[in-house]
C-alpha cells in the first residue's frame, strides 16, 4: 500500500471525518434513547414506533447479505415469516416452557440453521439465479406451511395467542434487537469479516484467490442476516400475539426491505437505516390516505434509485461531499 504524506490538509480532513463519526454515533445513541423512551412518554403510538424499528431492523438484515455480500435476495421475507412461526408454533401450539422473552431470541437460531441448509446450495448460484431461487423458496415455504396440519401450524387461520400479549415488553425486545443489529453493522464496516464480504461482492473469484474463504463468509453473513430477520419476526409475533400465513410471507415486505436498502445505499451502515426510515414515514402518510398507492410508490422509488442514484442516498451525498466517503461506508 502507498504511504500518504502527512499534510495539514489531510490532518484537517481526518479531524473532520472523526467529527462526523462522533456525530453519527451520537445520533445513534440519541435515537436509541428516543426509541426506548416512547412507551413512557404520554400520547405516543407504540405501534408506530414499533413498526418503524421493525422496518429498520429488516432493512439492516437484508443489507448484510444484499448490501455487503452482493447477493440480491428476493425472498428474504421468508426468514421473518419463519421467525413468527418458530415463536408461534413453539409458544402457541406446543406450549414450550422457555419464557417468551428468551424464546424470541433463541427460536430464531433454528431459522438461522435453516438458512445455512438452504444457503449451502443456494449461495452457489450467482446473480439473478440466487434472487429467483430465494423468491421460489419463499413461495414454496408459504404454501407448505399453509398445508401443514392445522393443529401444528394453524393453517390458513394462523396462530392467535392472546395469553402472551404484552406490547410493552415486546417493544423493548425490539429496541434491544435494533441496538444489537446497528452495533453489529457498525462493527462489520471496519472488521476483517466485513471487508471479506465486500470483496466477495466486488469480485468473488478474486476474493477466493486472495484467500477469502468465500463459502464460509457468505454462509455466515446469510445466517446472521436470517437470524436478525427471524428475531424481528418472533418479536413481532410477541407484539401482536398473532401470526398468519397471508401476512408474514407477503412479497410486499420484501419489496419494502429491498427499497429501503437501495434507497439508502446498499452495503453502508447509515444507508438502510435512512432508507427504511424515510420510506416508513412516507408509507405511514400514504397508507391512511391512499391505501393502494403505497405499493406502487415503493416500485417508483426502486425505479428512480436504479436509474438515477444507483448508490442510494449515501452514494448521492458522497458524490457531492467527497471527504465523507470513508466515513459513511
Amino acid at each position, binding site marked *: 500500500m502507498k504511504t500518504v504524506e502527512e499534510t495539514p490538509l489531510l490532518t484537517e480532513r481526518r479531524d473532520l471525518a472523526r467529527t462526523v463519526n462522533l456525530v453519527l454515533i451520537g445520533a445513534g445513541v440519541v435515537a436509541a434513547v428516543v426509541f426506548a423512551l416512547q412507551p413512557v412518554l404520554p400520547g405516543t403510538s407504540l405501534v408506530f414506533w414499533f413498526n418503524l424499528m421493525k422496518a429498520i431492523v429488516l432493512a439492516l438484515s437484508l443489507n448484510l447479505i444484499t448490501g455487503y455480500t*452482493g447477493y*440480491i435476495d*428476493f425472498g428474504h421475507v421468508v426468514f421473518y415469516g419463519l421467525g413468527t412461526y418458530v415463536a408461534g408454533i413453539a409458544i402457541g401450539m406446543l406450549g414450550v416452557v422457555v419464557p417468551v422473552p428468551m424464546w424470541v431470541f433463541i427460536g430464531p437460531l433454528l431459522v438461522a440453521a435453516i438458512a445455512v441448509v438452504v444457503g449451502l*446450495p*443456494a449461495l*452457489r*448460484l450467482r*446473480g*439473478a*439465479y440466487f*434472487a*429467483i*431461487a430465494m*423468491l*421460489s*423458496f419463499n*413461495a*414454496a415455504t408459504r*404454501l*407448505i406451511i*399453509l*398445508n401443514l396440519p392445522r393443529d401444528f401450524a394453524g393453517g390458513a387461520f394462523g396462530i392467535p395467542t392472546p395469553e402472551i400479549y404484552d406490547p410493552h415488553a415486546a417493544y423493548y425486545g425490539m429496541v434491544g434487537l435494533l441496538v444489537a443489529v446497528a452495533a453489529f453493522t457498525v462493527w462489520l464496516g471496519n472488521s476483517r469479516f466485513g471487508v471479506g464480504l465486500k470483496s466477495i461482492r466486488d469480485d468473488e473469484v478474486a476474493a477466493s484467490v486472495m484467500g477469502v474463504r468465500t463459502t464460509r463468509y457468505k454462509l455466515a453473513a446469510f445466517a446472521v442476516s436470517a437470524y436478525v430477520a427471524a428475531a424481528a419476526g418472533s418479536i413481532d409475533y410477541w407484539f401482536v400475539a398473532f401470526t398468519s400465513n397471508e401476512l408474514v410471507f407477503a*412479497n*410486499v415486505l420484501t*419489496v419494502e426491505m*429491498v*427499497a429501503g436498502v*437501495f434507497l439508502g445505499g446498499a452495503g453502508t451502515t447509515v444507508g438502510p437505516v435512512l432508507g427504511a426510515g424515510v420510506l416508513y414515514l412516507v408509507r405511514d402518510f400514504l397508507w391512511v390516505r391512499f391505501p*393502494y*398507492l*403505497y*405499493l*406502487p410508490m*415503493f*416500485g*417508483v*422509488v*426502486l*425505479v428512480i*434509485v*436504479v*436509474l438515477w442514484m*444507483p448508490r442510494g442516498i449515501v452514494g448521492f451525498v458522497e458524490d457531492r461531499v467527497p471527504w465523507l466517503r470513508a466515513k459513511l461506508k
Partner: protein
Amino acid sequence: MEAQVLLNGLLIGGVYGIAALGLGLVWGVMSVVNVSHGDMLIFFAYMTWVMVSLQTLSPFLALVILIPVGFLLGMGLYHVLVRHLIRRSEVELMSLVLFFGISAIIYGIAAYLWGSDFRSLPIPLPTLQIMGVAVPGTRLAAFLIGGGLVLGLRWFFRKTYWGKAIRAVAQSRNAARALGIDPDRVSAVSFGIALAYAGVAGALIALISPLSPSLGVAYAGRSFAVVVLGGLGNPVGALVAGIVLGLAESLSTLWITFSLSPAVAFVLLFLVLIVRPQGLFKPLRSR
C-alpha cells in the same frame, strides 16, 4: 384417470411455454431479468378480461389485439427505462432491482383496478369426448395457439433477418455492432416481441383460469422454472420445459393436495437451479 391428468398437464404446458418465452428472450438478448414478467402476464390477462366482458369481444379477437399492444408497450418500456440500464456495468443485478420495482407498480395497479376477487371469462369452446377422455376445447385451442407461436419464433430466429440479428446481439453486442447491426434497435424489437408474446400468453391465461392479481407470483415462478429448464430464449426448449412443468403440476395433484400444486413450479425451479443451473437446452446465445 391418469390419461385425463396427463392430457390436462400437456395442454396447460403449451401455455406455460409461451408464457415464459418473453422472459427468456429479454434475458438472453440483453441480460435483463424481468422479474415483473408474471405481473405483466396477469395484467395482459386482465386486459383480455376487460375487452371480453365489457366490450363483448371474442377472446380470440382480444388476443390478436394484444399482439401490437404488447409490442408497442415493450418498445416503449425499452426506450424509456431499460436503454439507460444497458450501458452500465452490472446490468443483470440492477435490472433485477428495477423490475422488482416495476413488479410492485403493476401489482399495485392491478389490485387497485380489479381488486382481489377472482374474475373469469365464459368458456368459448365446448368440451370434446375422445376415447373416453374429456378434451376441453378452449384448452386445446390455447395449447395449439401457444405451441404454434412458440414454434413460429424458432422459424423467425433461423430464417429472417431480424431473427438472426437478435441472435447476433445475444451472442455479442459489440461484434453485432461491428457487422452493422444496431444493438439498440434490435434490443428494442426483442423487448417488443417479448411483450407481444406475453400479451398472447396473458390472453390464453385469461381463457384457461380465473384471474386474481396475486396470480402474478405463481406465473413468475412458472416462467422462471421454464426458462431455467429450457434455456434462455430457446423456443423449443421453452415448449418442452412448459410441458414438463404442466405434467409435473398436474401429476402432483394425484398425490398432494390441489392447493399445493403452485409450489411444484417453485420446488422444481429450486431443484433445477441447484442441480443443473445451466438448464437442459442450449440458450439462444449459443451457436
